[in-house]
């Protein structure tokens, strides 16, 4: 039989009619040269697949995610209702005021209906964006792995300007994976990354504060729930999937153990 060279690619892609595919298979059995040609094409696909897969692990610029998040969606029918975007910006700004301490620190309550807008750039929004991007990472979930725990604590304490302690949360089903240094609203933020038995990521973030907040606050930004509190010269937040029920408990445990 004779064939066009590109039919070999079409065979590889499952694009040949069944009868023609059988003819190619028959030729492959009899022709080692053709078999080698097919294998070289498969090797290209495998190598290209690995190269393309590696691209997915490159971090997405937070500004790109933020632009998409902040964009006003098309509003069919000119629905005059309050934009969803504004609601979460309000929540993020309120949370910022809380986490940064100061006069805004008393605006947020655990009553979702009582959220108020406070001035400031939404660093919590950055935290949520980081979480959205990094929590999908597998090989590059963290910047420094858990086996360098001592270094992580020294490094992040020096960089963030507040004591960073890695809490043991094993009794809550969380194992420590490692850490990242983030920059949110222009300030260094320590991010300690944990995963549960299902592989879901929970992050504990800390930012230096001269006036840490009192008590715990909870808010939701899109798919994520955030529980925040104040500690020694720092404000903390635990962020995880909104569906999970244990974030308050995790936050309270982390607050005692940091």
């Amino acid at each position: 039989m004779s064939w066009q060279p590109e039919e070999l690619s079409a065979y590889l892609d499952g694009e040949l009619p069944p009868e023609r595919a059988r003819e190619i298979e028959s030729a492959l059995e009899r022709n080692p040269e053709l078999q080698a040609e097919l294998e070289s094409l498969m090797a290209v696909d495998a190598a290209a697949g690995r190269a393309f897969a590696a691209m997915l692990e490159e971090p997405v610029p937070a500004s790109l995610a933020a632009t998409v998040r902040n964009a006003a969606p098309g509003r069919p029918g000119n629905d005059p209702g309050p934009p969803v975007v504004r609601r979460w910006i309000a929540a993020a700004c309120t949370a910022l005021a809380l986490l940064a301490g100061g006069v805004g620190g008393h605006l947020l309550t655990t009553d979702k209906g009582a959220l108020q807008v406070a001035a400031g750039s939404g660093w919590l929004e950055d935290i949520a964006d980081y979480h959205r991007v990094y929590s999908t990472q597998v090989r590059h979930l963290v910047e420094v792995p858990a086996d360098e725990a001592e270094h992580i604590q020294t490094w992040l304490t020096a960089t963030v300007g507040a004591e960073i302690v890695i809490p043991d949360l094993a009794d809550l089903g969380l194992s420590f994976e490692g850490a990242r240094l983030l920059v949110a609203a222009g300030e260094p933020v320590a991010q300690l990354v944990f995963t549960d038995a299902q592989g879901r990521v929970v992050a504990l973030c800390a930012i230096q504060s001269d006036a840490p907040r009192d008590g715990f606050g909870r808010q939701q930004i899109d798919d994520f729930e955030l529980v925040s509190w104040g500690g020694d010269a720092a404000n903390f937040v635990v962020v995880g999937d909104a569906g999970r029920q244990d974030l308050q408990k995790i936050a309270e445990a982390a607050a005692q153990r940091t």
Partner: protein
Amino acid sequence: MAADFKNDLIAMLPRLRRFARSLTRSVTDADDLVQESCLRALSRSDQWDPAQPLDRWMFRIVRNTWISEVRKRSVRIGQGLVPADETHELTSSETGEDAALEKDLLQQIMDLPEELSALLLAVSVEGYSYAEAAALFDIPLGTVMSRIHRARKLLSLRMSETTGADT
């Protein structure tokens, strides 16, 4: 709906950036392209039929946005796409001293003639059928078959050259 749509888009950003980079062959241009495409998608989200996969719809928008940008650029600088059928060599997206450096496979993929890398990504990685790829890239089905084969042959050649050079 709007929040879900945005969340889906944001979750898809790594794949959109990868596809955009295979088209633009530049990280910066790719991010600009993805941003512009997402804004376009958001402004016409009511046109998306939830019965069709959002990623396919987005890839189409990215590719269309890129083509309109290429047309604008070609008007500005007086040149357009080099048809892939007329090109038989890898072109270099780098200049000067970079061109002399050893390139890894990803760079070699990006150096494939216009749109061959995007076509390879769509078919080999994203799982597009030839018919779907033909629609995405606005080319005949037979051209998809010949181009995807050309892409593989060019890379195979370059891989064997690289292997040979290393030994």
